[in-house]
């Protein structure tokens, strides 16, 4: 029901026009500030950053356009390429591990388990923690001197080595370990909700036809979870591209800058190295990555839903 039509139907008595006018306008007045915020602080700021990325801004912003030199500089920067490579490694492993662990845990939990609520709470609690807390904890666990390496050596495996966190080229995998620990329980919760929504009668019918549990899962249940896969994928991709806190707390981007991600790259160049133009260009590339990955996915999924 359209509100202006509703108000017209209630035809106000004359003399109450002003009050009525205010009443009609109130919904818009209430939404006004949020609309202004979205237009200025989201859309406006994106354009502002885009503008900065086409300038020579260093310590202070400047607004005379100079073309694509920041983007050229960005893609000639080895550190940016390392950040991109790390994003590819981290993104694919993080998403893959979270999806597999999450689905496995959800299926295991869906077998009429005692204490299901308790186990679910245990799998999910890391999600309540800050990535900084997670990073701090794993940094301690993974440190070679006193952490897991030390523990396994004490157990008698004298030559055991697990020093990824201080090894260039390997430290990004420790980010995967900590990230998956934090986020897989969340994916489990999504899948579990999905499993509970699967139509029982289809499964009963399949059982009557003599299908075993593996077949029922692979042929019927998992395919029907497609929308859940889709939302989990979008959320995880989003977390991966934005990942900043976890790297800062776990490795600080190190050793050197071997575990940099685009988000840490942007922060370092924009705020520590006074290269505002370059930082803006890297932020724009992050935005474009999000757009390039998520928009086609959403488009494909909505089209599929409309057809189905």
């Amino acid at each position, binding site marked *: 029901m*359209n509100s202006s039509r509703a108000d017209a139907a209630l035809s106000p008595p004359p003399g109450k026009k002003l009050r009525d006018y205010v009443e009609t306008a109130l919904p818009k007045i209430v939404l006004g500030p949020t609309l202004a915020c*979205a237009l200025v602080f989201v859309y406006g700021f994106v354009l502002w950053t885009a503008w900065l990325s086409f300038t020579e801004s260093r310590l202070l912003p400047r607004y005379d356009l100079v073309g694509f030199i920041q983007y050229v500089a960005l893609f000639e920067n080895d550190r940016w390429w390392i950040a991109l490579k790390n994003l590819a490694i981290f993104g694919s492993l993080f998403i893959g591990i979270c999806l597999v662990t999450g689905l496995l845990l959800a299926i295991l939990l869906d077998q009429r388990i005692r204490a299901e609520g308790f186990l679910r709470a*245990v799998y999910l609690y890391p999600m309540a923690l800050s990535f900084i807390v997670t990073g701090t904890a794993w940094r301690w666990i993974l440190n070679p001197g006193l952490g897991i390496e030390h523990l396994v050596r004490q157990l008698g495996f004298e030559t055991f080595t697990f020093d990824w966190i201080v090894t260039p080229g390997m430290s990004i995998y420790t980010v995967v370990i900590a990230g998956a620990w934090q986020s897989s329980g969340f994916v489990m919760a999504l899948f579990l909700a999905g499993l509970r929504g699967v139509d029982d009668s289809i499964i009963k019918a399949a059982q009557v036809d003599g299908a075993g549990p593996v077949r029922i899962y692979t042929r019927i249940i998992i395919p029907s979870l497609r929308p859940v896969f889709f939302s989990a994928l979008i959320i995880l991709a989003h977390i991966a591209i934005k990942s900043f806190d976890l790297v800062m707390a776990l490795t600080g981007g190190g050793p050197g800058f071997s575990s940099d991600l685009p988000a840490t790259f942007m*922060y370092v160049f924009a705020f520590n190295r006074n290269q505002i133009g370059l930082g803006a260009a890297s932020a724009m590339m992050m935005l474009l990555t999000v757009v390039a990955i998520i928009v086609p996915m959403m488009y494909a999924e909505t089209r599929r839903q409309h057809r189905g």
Partner: protein
Amino acid sequence: MVEVQRTETAGARVIGRVMLYALLILFALYYLMPLFVMLTTSLKTLDDIRGGNLIALPEQVSFDAWIKAWSSACTGVNCGGLSGNFWNSVSFVLPAVAISTLIGALNGYVLTMWRFRGSDVFFTLLLIGCFIPFQVVLLPMAQTLGWLGIANSTTGLIFVHVVYGLAFTTLFFRNFYVSIPEELVKAARIDGAGFFRIFWRIILPLSPPILVVCVIWQFTQIWNDFLFGVVFSSGERQPITVALNNLVNTSTGVKEYNVDMAAAIIAGLPTLFVYVVAGKYFVRGLTAGSVKG
């Protein structure tokens, strides 16, 4: 619920169940391990840490690391522990949660009960905003906060968190209010009740479930935030997450892992507490916010 039932022998079934529980418990131990390690490490002395190992229990329980983390640990030049930063976080998180939730509720109310031409476009515009990586607004926001005179202040952090939290809070309330029958509001309007009267008397009393979800979601998000904290605040104004990161990365002197761990638990305690007492709502927010977002 999918139950794996087959015409298998009772023995095979028992073995299957045992393996199932064994797997579930193994996973549970894996997820609990870091918390256990954090807690035990924080209660050890430094000698105990060097002499023992990751999973050993403390030889004698000592709360020194906790006291130091709270009141005298050094981050850079500042040696007042994390207590100041903890209260900083409290002082901007609570108002930011309250304001963003209230505005979100009003927005959701308008978007469902007082729709007008363009309100759906507005909602879409707002939703797309959920997807941008915040890196793309940091530089302009830093400048804007400076112009407004609220750079490096509690007000500034409240402002930033409210602005970028609105999309989510609006989403929560809009999706909840959609299921409230519009007739309820129409009837009240015919009786002459106005916009705010309907909100207070009819809508708000129906809202506690979503209010809890939204407050918990916002509290967790804002308390755990690091990016806005590290960019828009400095020194004594920093929130606890930033202070924790500074503490852990302070390279002067002996590395005190027990203090680091105590500090990490202190930083995680408020959200963990909320999770323990209201986990159901936390999960609901997580799934609702994400599936739609």
